[in-house]
């Protein structure tokens, strides 16, 4: 119950900050707000051996706000996003076992334009697990995830742009018993970290740059 409240508070906080940011930037400057949708290929990294582990296809849907905070560095911008992301992996034996985790994620990125059409970005992603297809999975897996993000953006025609992004999870998803083949309990396992490659399209709702300086 406490955990649910914490998640709810966290989501509310991020939603508040995100909404406030959009409203502020609409008021003070020209907003560059975009809708983004992408497909992703995700998997997990682990220290323990996970047998027959394979990547799965997932998706990301969300909004982003990009703004330019420093006059002297016009090539530099910040991107805040709110995304619904599906990540996970599968294990294939006689049948496939899918582990799908749906996150509400809040990336905070620094973007640097190498040319008017091309930019690279990096930053962190904070994410909350909101749902999983695993029976009882909300009790098995960590709800909070942190990852590093690296990506690139290519401006297309008009309001469209294309991006690719790698998310490298830092937070172990799993806290579970280490049980050997005879049934002895060893140390707790803190393992399984997300890794995810996304390729997608952004559609700018407001095409102009947001500048936080006069």
């Amino acid at each position: 119950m406490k955990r649910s409240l914490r998640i709810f508070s966290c989501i509310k906080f991020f939603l508040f900050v995100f909404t406030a940011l959009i409203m502020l930037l609409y008021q003070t400057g020209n907003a560059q707000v975009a809708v983004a949708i992408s497909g992703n290929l995700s998997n997990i990294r682990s220290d323990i051996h996970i047998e027959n582990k394979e990547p799965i296809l997932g998706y990301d849907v969300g909004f982003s706000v990009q703004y330019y905070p420093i006059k002297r560095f016009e090539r530099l911008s910040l991107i805040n996003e709110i995304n619904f992301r599906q990540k996970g992996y599968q294990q294939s034996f006689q049948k496939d076992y899918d582990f799908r985790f749906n996150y509400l994620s809040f990336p905070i990125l620094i973007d640097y334009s190498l040319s008017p059409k091309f930019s690279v970005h990096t930053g962190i992603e904070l994410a909350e697990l909101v749902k999983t297809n695993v029976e009882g999975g909300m009790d098995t897996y960590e709800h909070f995830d942190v990852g590093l993000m690296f990506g690139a953006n290519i401006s297309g025609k008009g309001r469209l742009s294309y991006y690719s992004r790698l998310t490298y999870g830092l937070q172990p998803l799993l806290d579970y018993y280490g049980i050997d083949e005879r049934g002895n309990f060893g140390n707790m396992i803190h393992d399984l970290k997300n890794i995810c490659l996304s390729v997608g399209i952004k559609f700018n709702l407001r095409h102009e740059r947001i500048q936080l300086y006069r």
Partner: protein
Amino acid sequence: MKEYSYIVRLILVVSCFALVACEGIFIPDPIDPRIPKYTETGNDVAGALINDEIWESVRSFSFPNYTQVSTIHIWPEKDSLEVCFFGETNSRSACIGFHLTDLGIQSFNDLKKLEGEKVSLDGEENLGYYFEDGVGGNQYGTGQVYFKQVLPKEDSGIILSGTFGFTITNGAHKGMNVLYGRFDYYIDKDTEVIIGDAG
């Protein structure tokens, strides 16, 4: 006529509740999803790797009966007990069991003494066995069974959770490895525990 329709509805609702209440809950293990996750909540489920096959025991319900997934037979005069888990290996009926002695179990209430007991299966006084479609014979499985938690419930039952792993050293299943076993059952005092030979 109206009264009858209420009774029918009531029976349907009660049946639905009974269905939900008696089904085993298979939560896949996060490391090997073919076997159930280790839990201590009375999910009425067990699993193990039998060589390269999966043995699985999940309580299912089909009105008016439910499948019996476990029994505990206590012989107070011999200070011994037999714990049996019923399931399937690749759709073949299969049972995993343990014959244990000198644990001081004389009655249902004594089962609490099993909590935390890691019993070494030496193949003589304490042993594990595996029957498939009734085939097994006398077996002397050596390894271990660990009763990690025994939780008495107010409604005359206990939750019995633990792990096991053993190797069968003789008989029809000689050389068979029963590994990564885990169980989490609600054991009903009246229907799943037998005291003495009377049964």
